[in-house]
């Protein structure tokens, strides 16, 4: 076999290694571990509550980009082994989103429901983020094999297309939050990455329709 073809084969073997999932799992937990350490060691700066809320929000967006990159990467690089990480990475999006919501309602709002209600009335972008979280909860709740079987593959796939709505709402949430200072540089980066990943899917869909 020529050397060129052996390379992807070795990669695939690495990705199929029983420990590969564990390694990815550990890596995905690193940001959380760092934040917990930084909170305890007082490394979060002058406003730790704000720093935690923002960092967990950033990591939610980053994992959203990563999980939506799995399929394009798998297809473009012809590496079917990548597919086995998709569910776990998706659940990490949910994990960081839940941490984001928890940081906000606990550290910023002290779990005071009337304060939270008043805050949401004043800051509608929080409602957009919360809607996104509710949709994400539906995806997380139907992520295990029994749910897929009982829904049926077709319905499950339709339901999980909601991730595109989640991505759009997450960008709107971030954009709106940054609108006060008109500081859109980072928003533009995430929007471009997510836009490219969704655009790739749109192109593939249209090509399939025409061919």
């Amino acid at each position: 076999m020529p050397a060129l073809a052996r390379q992807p084969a070795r990669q695939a073997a690495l990705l199929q290694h029983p420990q590969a999932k564990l390694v990815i799992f550990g890596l995905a937990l690193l940001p959380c571990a760092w934040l917990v350490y930084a909170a305890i060691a007082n490394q979060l700066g002058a406003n730790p509550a704000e720093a935690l809320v923002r960092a967990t929000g950033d990591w939610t967006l980053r994992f959203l980009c990563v999980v939506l990159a799995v399929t394009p990467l798998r297809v473009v690089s012809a590496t079917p082994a990548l597919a086995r990480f998709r569910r776990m990475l998706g659940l990490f999006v949910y994990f960081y989103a839940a941490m984001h919501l928890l940081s906000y309602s606990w550290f910023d709002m002290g779990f005071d429901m009337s304060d939270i209600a008043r805050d949401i009335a004043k800051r509608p972008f929080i409602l957009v983020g919360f809607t996104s979280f509710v949709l994400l909860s539906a995806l997380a709740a139907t992520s295990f094999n029994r749910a897929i079987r009982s829904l049926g593959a077709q319905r499950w796939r339709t339901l999980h297309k909601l991730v595109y709505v989640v991505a759009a709402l997450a960008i709107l949430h971030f954009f709106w939050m940054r609108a006060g200072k008109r500081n859109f540089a980072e928003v533009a980066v995430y929007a471009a990455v997510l836009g490219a990943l969704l655009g790739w899917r749109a192109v593939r869909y249209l090509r399939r329709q025409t061919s």
Partner: protein
Amino acid sequence: MLIRSDRSVYDHAIPSEITSRSVYEGRRDLLRLMGTGVAGAALAAWASRQALAQPAAATVRPGRLAALQAIRSNVPGASSMEQPTSYKDATSYNNYYEFGTDKSDPAKYAHTLKVAPWTVEIEGLIKRPGRYGIEDLQKLGAQEERIYRMRCVEGWSMVIPWVGYSLGELIRRVEPLGSAKYVEFVTLADPKTMPFIDSTVLNWPYVEGLRMDEAMHPLTLLCFGMYGEVLPNQNGAPVRLVVPWKYGFKSAKSLVKIRFTDQQPNTAWNRAAAREYGFYSNVNPNVDHPRWSQATERRIGEDGLFAKRRKTLMFNGYEPQVGQLYAGMDLKKLF
């Protein structure tokens, strides 16, 4: 006959700042007790507060910048008893948009600001206009330490030991004409040293303003330092305004011009979003920002992550001193 000075109208003590009669009458005994280490923990708290009442400024210098000697201020309300924010937090969590809109940006980028030589132009409806070098301006009044609460419009607050003198001292010296009703403050806008000045977030230069009586109020500080040293760049070096009963953005940084006018100044934030930032912008828990509540605030550095937000006070707690400036005004309309 009762002779009232023009300052005495501002003398309204806050009950919490009045030393109780028994403590006052026994003060010498207490000091002796403290000297021998017999005074209990309850008195230690009182003693540390009382130590602040000594003439010399009590703040421990961080040792980063040139010292700026200051005496203790006698201005009512000018010496908050609250725990000052750490120097690190006060110099690394700032809003100074000319250097970027993230609160960590000014500490990273403001080192480019050139603070010497520096002149401040004083002009408009006054008898004695002129240009002042920063050294001369600094010597116009006795430098006092003022420990003020600082409430940002974004919903967080600090306690900062500033150094400066009442702006009123400068104003009296330049002799405003009767027609001068407002004071406008213009800050530096230098594209060469300020990386964010090409952004569209505000119209540069940053302009702030006060009504004449607000500018003359003894609490209004022309500020040259903090924590016993000259101002760090990110905090508005070499000279800034500090108006403790208004949201932080009213306290313009790095002043280059002070202008006396008969027109209410068009302030930078008012021009950017008139519905959100009024000319007065007094701290007021009862008037929300259109996009968030102003009822509470997060005190920076207080009890770490699990600290509850604290209630915001009317005029940032300076109501006894400044409330009468706004008597009869509808503060919901004139926010």
